[in-house]
């Protein structure tokens, strides 16, 4: 059970900051910590399932229709989760409901399927999925902290004293997402470069 597969996804090869996949939901959804965790957990769950299935069927897929087959697997998996959650856990679905359809178009899932799952064993694929999922959630949470506190004047829903009366709305809107994302990535590169000048 080599843990490298697991830990690489969390920080070293963080899906958002390093491989730069899955930025669409990251920017669109990271307006509050609750959303961020919701999206993160949902994405991790789907990534786990799809990586497993794809690594199981990878041998038999003719290369010409590799992408359509993977996408059908992912879409089926996502829709099933969405429906089952809506039916059996209505409360959870109310909060996570809008994220699930977004996951189908999350580049990480197909990215990892294409780059990893169709070349490695199911065990490694599961580890990779967990690592990538956690990395995705952490990155999302980091972005969401800034955007929620600055843009919405709240932290996890609790109003923050100073900012709550006139928060900078730009942070919540699209440009804010871009700025926070860019700055965080620069900070990560700065760290990765050993804190050089």
């Amino acid at each position: 059970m080599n843990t490298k597969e697991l830990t690489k996804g969390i920080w070293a090869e963080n899906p958002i900051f390093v491989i730069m996949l899955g930025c669409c939901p990251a920017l669109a959804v990271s307006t509050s910590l609750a959303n961020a965790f919701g999206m993160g957990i949902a994405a991790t769950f789907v990534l786990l399932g799809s990586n497993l299935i794809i690594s199981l069927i990878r041998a038999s897929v003719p290369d010409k229709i590799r992408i359509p087959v993977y996408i059908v697997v992912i879409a089926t998996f996502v829709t099933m989760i969405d429906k089952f959650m809506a039916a059996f856990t209505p409360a959870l679905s109310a909060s996570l409901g809008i994220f699930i359809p977004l996951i189908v178009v999350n580049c990480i899932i197909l990215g990892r399927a294409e780059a990893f799952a169709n070349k490695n064993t199911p065990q490694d694929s599961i580890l990779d999925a967990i690592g990538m999922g956690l990395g995705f959630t952490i990155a999302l949470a980091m972005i969401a902290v800034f955007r929620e506190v600055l843009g919405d004047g709240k932290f996890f829903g609790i109003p923050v004293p100073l900012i709550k009366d006139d928060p900078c709305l730009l942070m919540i809107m699209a440009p804010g997402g871009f700025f926070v994302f860019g700055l965080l990535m620069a900070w990560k590169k700065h760290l990765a470069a050993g804190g050089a000048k």
Partner: protein
Amino acid sequence: MNDLIQTGKYLLIISAIAGLLLAFTEMVTAPRIAENNRLVLEKARREVLPGAERFDTLDLATTDDAGHPATRSLSLGFDAQGKFLGTVQTVSPKGYGGPIDIVLGLKPDGAVSGVKIQSMRETPGLGTKLAEGFLDKFLEVARAGHPVKFFVKKDGGDIDAITAATISSRAFCKGIRDGIKVVQEGQTLIQQRAAAPGATPLPGPATTPVAPSPAPAPAPAPVVPPAPSVPPAPPADPESPPPAPTVAPEPPAPPLPPAIPQGGGQ
């Protein structure tokens, strides 16, 4: 050539399996989802029209934004003693990110008794403020009694919009105005139905039972009481059988259920 068949066959199998899986999940989950939605709506209706115990549905013909004829089903709320409390309906104006489903309660005199947002897809953090501060302020103004102009301040109304989310605020007000218009137009019918609170609701315009078919959106009842001017709306869905009038203590069929948050339905 055989490669063509071979690949086609492979994708056919995969897609067919996918179709089967989804159909299976749909079959298992659709009724429960409809049930969940109905419960949520039920709670919303009670919340919006305090004190209402029993609801009667009445379908009114109206025209939607593009002028095409459409039916709007109203629920007439009666308290335990059968007194007519007001009407509840779901309006779905088009907001910034898609339809905003609002459950609107109106008192007999047209004042707003209560409003609740069922589902919306507005930009998180901005449009979603409709459900937070905006709603309470809106209710204060609406319940103030004096005739309220349901327009955003910018358009000369009494409602102050959410900053940077004027589109959502305008859509919200439009939904309210639309609801009030429907009730005013159908005022005669409502009075007629409200006038006979004691008796069990007239058998006439009963509702369709929850059709067993997995279709998530059961078609609204095609029959509308023979109002002089308004032509009955053509049955939208040929497939569902004409509803046998069933009298149940509390008509189970929900009015046009709100769009499932995931955005299916017309």
